[in-house]
């Protein structure tokens, strides 16, 4: 009599080992191909090269669509979506959320490359905190005239409308006094205050090289010949891809030129794939990206034929900037791979703004408005 359960025989183990080795040999090339973006074509079953799209949003509860198909409803900890296995061609992406502006972009996807995009959705009705020169003893802001700004925005604080208010019965709002000094001081001085404030928030240093130049985290914003540009001057390893991507024509260029490139981009922009095929092949090659960036990483900001009176970085972002035009204050993305999305931060004539730390203040000549920024940015 002996134990019934025998040790595993060498032969048994040998066979199992070679069975697993076989799986390894078969699985390895399959996974290599899969991981690098090869997929089986639905037509013919042959291998095709695909690319990917990575769309990040700053909002939870937003819907991400790729080619009109809902692919992700963002949540607090899942605010981005990575789509893989996409054909190498132009894809339309939009990110929408109820009560917010929709972000739309058409981006080329190249084989084996992931195209990244950062969406932003500002509220349709901006929320502002009104800061007036005068306030009651209880600290309630006092408006002496109706603010046209409030037609397009809602106030988050209590405001007393008192056109006949006597200043002798009111107190000076010290916050207003402090802020108005920023708006009235010279740019150089303002910059240093702003930069210090921003540095306090972000822990990084910002420098100003001129009154119309702002630099932060390797990105420089500057004005030249009435145009505003964003230039990447930092470490090339950290440079966002869009700085060296083919530029999309600005509003003026698309109306004034008819170069092949412009036609191509316009065709892509409007989804006219057939037209694009005629002017340029849509079967985009795998884009070779060199570590040694040879392009000039400068992007012209599309001002849509308006005059930009002021500009700055959007708080905590080097992808977005704030511009002031005659029609209001806007947030515009620097990424020009297709049109630059522009969304109003606060509409109104002749507004100026200042970015202080993580806050944006607008001034219409009478009242200062602190514009609410989603905390998701910080």
């Amino acid at each position, binding site marked *: 009599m002996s134990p019934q359960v025998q040790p595993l025989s060498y032969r048994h183990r040998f066979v199992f080992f070679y069975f697993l080795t076989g799986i*390894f040999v078969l699985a390895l090339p399959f996974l290599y191909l899969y*991981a690098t973006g090869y997929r089986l074509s639905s037509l013919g079953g042959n291998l095709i090269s695909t690319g990917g799209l990575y769309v990040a949003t700053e909002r939870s509860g937003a819907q991400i669509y790729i080619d009109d198909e809902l692919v992700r409803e963002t949540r607090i900890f899942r605010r981005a979506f990575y789509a893989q296995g996409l054909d190498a061609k132009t894809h339309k992406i939009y990110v929408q959320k109820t009560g917010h502006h929709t972000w739309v972009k058409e981006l080329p996807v190249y084989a084996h490359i992931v195209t990244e995009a950062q969406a932003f959705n500002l509220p349709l009705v901006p929320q502002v905190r009104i800061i007036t020169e005068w306030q009651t003893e209880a600290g309630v802001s006092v408006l002496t005239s109706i603010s046209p700004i409030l037609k397009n925005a809602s106030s988050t604080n209590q405001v007393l409308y008192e056109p006949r208010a006597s200043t002798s019965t009111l107190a000076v709002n010290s916050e207003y006094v402090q802020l108005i000094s920023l708006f009235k001081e010279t740019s150089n001085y303002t910059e240093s205050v702003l930069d210090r404030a921003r540095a306090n928030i972000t822990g990084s240093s910002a420098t100003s090289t001129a009154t119309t130049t702002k630099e932060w985290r390797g990105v420089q914003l500057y004005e030249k010949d009435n145009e505003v540009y964003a230039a990447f001057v930092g470490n090339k390893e950290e440079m966002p891809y869009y700085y060296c991507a083919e530029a999309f024509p600005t509003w003026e260029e698309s109306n004034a030129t008819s170069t092949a490139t412009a036609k191509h981009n316009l065709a892509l922009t409007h989804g006219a794939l057939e037209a694009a095929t005629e002017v340029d092949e849509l079967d985009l090659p795998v884009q070779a990206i060199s570590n040694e960036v040879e392009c000039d990483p400068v992007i012209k900001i599309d001002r849509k034929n308006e005059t930009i009176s002021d500009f700055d970085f959007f708080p905590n972002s080097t992808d977005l900037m704030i511009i002031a035009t005659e029609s209001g204050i806007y947030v515009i993305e620097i990424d020009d791979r297709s049109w630059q999305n522009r969304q109003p931060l606060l509409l109104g004539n002749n507004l100026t703004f200042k970015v202080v730390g993580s806050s944006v203040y607008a001034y219409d000549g009478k009242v200062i408005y602190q514009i609410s920024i989603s905390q998701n940015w910080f």
Partner: protein
Amino acid sequence: MEDNAHLLPYARRSDFHVGRATELSGGKRKLYRFLEILPGLASWTTLIGIVLLSIYRPFLAAYFIIAFSIFWVLKTAFLSYHLRHNWRRLRHHMSLDWQDLVSRFEHEHLYHLVIFPFYKEPREVIEATLESLVRVSYDKKKLIVVLATEERAGGEAAQIATEMKERFGEEFGHFEITSHPANVPGEMAGKGSNVSYAIEKVREKLIEPNKIPYEHIIVSNFDIDTVLYPDYFNCLVWHFMTAERPLKSSFQPVPLFNNNLWQAGSLSRVVAMSSTFWEMVQQERPERMATFSSHSVSFQALYEVNYWQRNMVSEDSRIYWNLMMANDGEYDVIPLSYPVSMDANVGGNLFETVKNIYKQHRRWTYGVENFSYIAYHFTRNKNIRLGKRIKILLQQAEGYWSLVTNPIMLFVLGWAPIFLGGRVFHETVLSYNLPIVVRNLLILAMFGLVISSIISLSLAPKRPAHRSRFAYVVMAIQWLLVPFTMIIFSALPGLDAQTRLMFGRYMGFWVTPKKR
């Protein structure tokens, strides 16, 4: 007559019991030192190499990591297969009536010399061990029990030993207390020197005067917390009697670290059961086995190599390599697939537990010192077949290398190309898919943990009345800690041990505190 005449020819070499390079001289010393450096060098080269590869050749690093992840999944499947089979065999062996099985053999001539090396462990630990010995289904008059104390442990330990002899002495054929002197030149304070001293004392005092043939004595070297299952000696005798060459074999039980499983925290339990599972896997591939912790071996075999080494830490595994070398490769480890229970590592608080487990595993993984010994003697003993030497060396090298590098490569460096690969790599589909592919493969590998969870529950001792049934749920899901424990209590102490050996900062024997 020379005093080493009883030794096997190869064991008579002056370098047979070499513990470290400093004990040699000339070319031998240089060779041994190189072999001490090699494991640490290989591990560090691998880890640093992957970091450099991730920086300078991120695509290559990514391909390597994917290949390695598949390898890991398949390795998990391979080991789980062995584990599951051994679990079946273990349970079957535990259900057998071994007394009945050995009754067909003439085995009354066999004596069991049971040695318990004892330092400063608590009284209740020794009591539980000896009580289990009293309960074995075997003729206890055939048991020679030795409580091997250390002189440096002081009077209290000696007092406990005396009390134990008074209480249990009459239960066994003989009960001996030995006291290993402190500070013996050429010895390391530790288990090896203690048990070797004890066994020689017993030989002089008991075996020789009673003229007991050495080949009739099976020696069991048990850690002091070893609680025996009733049929251990019957199972051991059955395997001894049925072994092809019993005097050229060591017998290895499965160490279940479950004496205090219900007192131990999840971390201790996972680490303890992982060690058990590794030994269970090894039981199904005995050609890769060395003795570990509590084990049994014939007195004759031990006497021929002058017992356990006295000058190094891992005497439990080294004795197998000593015997293998001395017997020109003709020596086996026979897996018993029968358990002995030992203590899981428990400290006074979480920090102490973590510290103790780390130190215990650093001591265990310091078994890498065996690699130098094996490789060195493989260059000397040409009587061992070349094929066998190469095979063993590669197996050992892979074992020590993978112990340290694999968990770090998988759970930490697997993401290195993503963070270090630079902009060009970062924008590729491969960069984005790498974490997805690796994550999915790791999830697949985690299914092996389901098997671990089931087996660990089946091996747990009976639930104490004061513990709720919910504890079983915790014991089932505690296996999610494995990625963490693999790095903290396997890879890091292993790397620590290899690095110490690499720089010649030789470790001493650290006694694991016992607490119940």
